[in-house]
Structure formats: structure tokens, C-alpha cells
């Protein structure tokens, strides 16, 4: 199956996901495996909101593939500041680069961009929408730690605005996963996401308390509850503590629980968890590079073209 763009996790089949993860594992073991197929390939990094981590991860991945990147820079320093539309911006950048990685504060931005350009567009986060490349590295980490079948996954925190959550939940419908969503009432999964999950036949339950499910979980995926989402600081203080974990909390968990987080964290995972066997979040962040290498390898046409054996690994 071939995709020209990676816009949402919903477009990924199990086969697509496994192809990327397998390729990522190959590249992780042998980063030189792609040779110099990407020596003349340029990837544009268009970040309309700051994200040092995701941007660096794509930048590193492209360079490790032997290619290079061009960076739009910050919105403040670009013509976007002068009121240029996203559609115009990406049409101009299409002239420079062989692919576009887009981070944008509005939902649907990557989809819009994809309608105006012929080069592949990768959604690196669109508002509260989707973040599918993050999901691929999340799944890679999960597969390494716990496998991807017969999993009980808890997803906790800001489920309403958490794009990593929306993408992950959508991708997990390809696998035999039981999903437990833990959040304050006001930050529950949006109904559009629920609609897709039910449509895909997902087994899911919602909770306001982690205690209700912690003991059953194989994976606990924690996200940050953003203070700025609450109109009232008191409301935030009321819920915040309920969704923080520390080593003591995890005494009620299974011994082989994997704790994940897309990072950056603030105080939702206490530092005393870092040194436990549960913590997978730093490994998870490191996995961003091989996974994004594999993803780009599938989406971009290396100029050394013709050797399908080397180029058949991605979400095409």
C-alpha cells in the first residue's frame, strides 16, 4: 500500500506500521543500510509552532539518511508573519524540497498542505489533531518492550487536546489492544476520535481514576495536563494531582508495566520513576530517529532509485 503523505495515524494499516517498524529496527542496527540514496534529497522542516524535539529528530533522521534539511525558521522571522497563507507557503517550499514536515497550530493543516503540493507531507503535529510519526515511535517502543498484541494499554492525561493520544489510539485499533482512557471529565477524548475508535471496533473504557485500572495495565502512556487548558487555576489544582504518578503509585502496577510519555514532561511523572524498570520514555525519545528514518525512507524517493530492495520499507 502506498501513501503519498502521512497525515494521520488512521491511514496506517497494520502492514504499513509493521513495515516501518521493521525497517526502523534494521536502520537502528545498521544506520548505513540506506547507503547514499538520499545524498541529493532535501527535506523541508516547517514548524509553525515551536518543537525543538520533533524538529531535531526529523533533522537528525534526514541527515542520517545521507540527505539534508532546509528549515523555515521561526514563524516570527518568516513571511507567515506578514499574513501569507499556509497554502502559499507550502507551494513555495515545494520548489525547494523533496518533502515537507509540517508542524502547525491548527487542526487539519497538514491535510490542507497536502492538497497544494506534490511532494510528500508529513504531519508532525496539527493543533489538537494528530501526530502520526510520534505514534510510530511509540509503537516501536511498545513493540520492543511489550509486543503489540494482547495488550492492555492505559492512556492518561489530556485526552482532549493530546494529539499524540489521538494518533496512538487510532493506530492501536490495528492491534489486539484493550484501551483504558484516564482523564478528568473535562479532558475526555473528543467525540470525533471516539467515533473512529468505535467504528474500528476498539475495546475501550473511560475512567477518571487511574486506580481503577492500573493493576491491569501492560503499558501506561502518560501525557501532560496543560495548565493553560483550564480557565481557572483552582480547577487545575483540583485535578492535576490525580494524574501524577511516582514510584509509590506504581507499586500497585504489574511488575512488567511499561511507562511511556511523549515528553516533555512537567510533573506528571516524578523523577523517582526514571530509575525504575518501568520507565521507557527516554528510550522512546531516542527511537524517534530510526523510526523517522524508516518513515522518510518509505515516503521519499531516494535519488539512487531503482533498487527496490532498499526502498520498500516504509509507509508507501
Amino acid at each position, binding site marked *: 500500500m502506498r501513501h503519498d503523505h502521512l497525515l494521520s495515524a488512521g491511514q496506517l494499516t497494520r502492514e504499513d506500521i509493521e513495515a516501518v517498524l521493521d525497517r526502523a529496527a534494521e536502520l537502528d542496527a545498521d544506520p548505513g543500510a540506506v547507503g547514499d540514496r538520499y545524498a541529493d534529497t532535501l527535506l523541508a522542516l516547517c514548524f509553525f509552532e515551536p518543537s525543538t524535539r520533533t524538529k531535531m529528530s526529523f533533522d537528525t533522521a534526514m541527515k542520517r539518511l545521507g540527505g539534508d534539511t532546509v528549515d523555515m525558521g521561526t514563524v516570527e522571522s518568516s513571511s507567515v508573519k506578514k*499574513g501569507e*497563507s*499556509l*497554502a502559499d507557503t507550502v507551494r513555495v517550499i515545494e520548489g525547494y524540497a523533496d518533502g515537507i514536515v509540517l508542524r*502547525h*497550530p*491548527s*487542526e*487539519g*493543516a497538514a*491535510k*490542507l498542505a497536502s*492538497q497544494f503540493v506534490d511532494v510528500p507531507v508529513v504531519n508532525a503535529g*496539527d*493543533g*489538537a*489533531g494528530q501526530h502520526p510519526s510520534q505514534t510510530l515511535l511509540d509503537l516501536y517502543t511498545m513493540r520492543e518492550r511489550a509486543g503489540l498484541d494482547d495488550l492492555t494499554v492505559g492512556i492518561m492525561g489530556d485526552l482532549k487536546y493530546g494529539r499524540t493520544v489521538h494518533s496512538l489510539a487510532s493506530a492501536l485499533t490495528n492491534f489486539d489492544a484493550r484501551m483504558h482512557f484516564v482523564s478528568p471529565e473535562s479532558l475526555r477524548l*473528543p*467525540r*470525533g*476520535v471516539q*467515533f*473512529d475508535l468505535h467504528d474500528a471496533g476498539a475495546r475501550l473504557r473511560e475512567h477518571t481514576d487511574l486506580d481503577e485500572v492500573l493493576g491491569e495495565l501492560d503499558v501506561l502512556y502518560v501525557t501532560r495536563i496543560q495548565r493553560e487548558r483550564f480557565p481557572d487555576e483552582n480547577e487545575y489544582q483540583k485535578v492535576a494531582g490525580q494524574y501524577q504518578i511516582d514510584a509509590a503509585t506504581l507499586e500497585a502496577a504489574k511488575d512488567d508495566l511499561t511507562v511511556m510519555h511523549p515528553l516533555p514532561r512537567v510533573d506528571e511523572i516524578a523523577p523517582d520513576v526514571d530509575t525504575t524498570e518501568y520507565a521507557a520514555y527516554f528510550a522512546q525519545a531516542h527511537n524517534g530517529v530510526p523510526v523517522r528514518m524508516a518513515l522518510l525512507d518509505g515516503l521519499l524517493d531516494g535519488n539512487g532509485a531503482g533498487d527496490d530492495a532498499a526502498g520498500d520499507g516504509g509507509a508507501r
Partner: protein
Amino acid sequence: MSDPERELRVSKIRDGTVIDHITGGQALNVLAILGIDGDEGVGVSIGMNVPSDKLGTKDVVKVEDRELSQGEVDVLSLLAPEATVNIVREFEVVDKKRVERPARVVGLLTCPNHNCITNADEPVESAFGVVDDGVRCEFCGEIVREDIGDHLAVH
């Protein structure tokens, strides 16, 4: 309702469109879909909450000198699934159709998600897929179930 003579007496317009069996209370939204606010000078008659055998009460809209396009007819189905559309020329009903739910509606609704890219100043039309009991933005995934008429882009 199947008697064309009776239909004609009810709809005394020379040329235009008679939309019958509109869900009670939706007549003004139907006009909004057509982009008609009375400034065009075309004759518009509205019957609201008219007794109906089929619907209990219904709305009826008659617009002179205006024939609905298929896209307009289709999107009516979201507001008024029972509506029938009669195209009238020279006092004759020349075409009579029941609306069908379209697979998608383009350019007719605005997305209620303020952070949706279609609400930024971009050169795209909104696009909604039609789902079981509502419509869904193809860009941000937002679902609109109730009060679809409130999101008409043609206000």
C-alpha cells in the same frame, strides 16, 4: 400530494422552486442554504408549521426564478431529510425529486472547530463527510450532529 393539479394550486409560481415537506422550523435555514435573504428581489414565500399528514407540521418554501442545483438539493437532506423539491417552469412542475443524503458536502458548512484550518484564511472550501447521524469535517474530524443549519457557510 401525488396529484400534480393540487400541487400546482398550492404553488402558484410561474418559474422557480417549491420545497415541500421541510422539517418544521427549518425553512429559514433552507433559505440560508440558497443564499437568499430577500435582497435579491426574487419572490419568496414561506409557510412555517403548516399541518401535514406525513410530518405533523412542516415548512414550505417557494422561491421564484431560482432552480436548485443538485448540490443544493443534496445538502437540504441534512436539514430536512423528508423534503421534496419541485422545479417549476411556466406554472408546470417539470421536475420533482426527493432529496438524497450526499456522501459529502463541500463549501456549504463552516466547521464549528474554531481552530480548524478551514476557519483560517486559506484558499480551500470546507468539506464534510456525511456520517450516520451528522456530518464530519474532513480536515479536523469534528462531528456536527445537531443544528447543522447553524453552521451554514452562506449566512
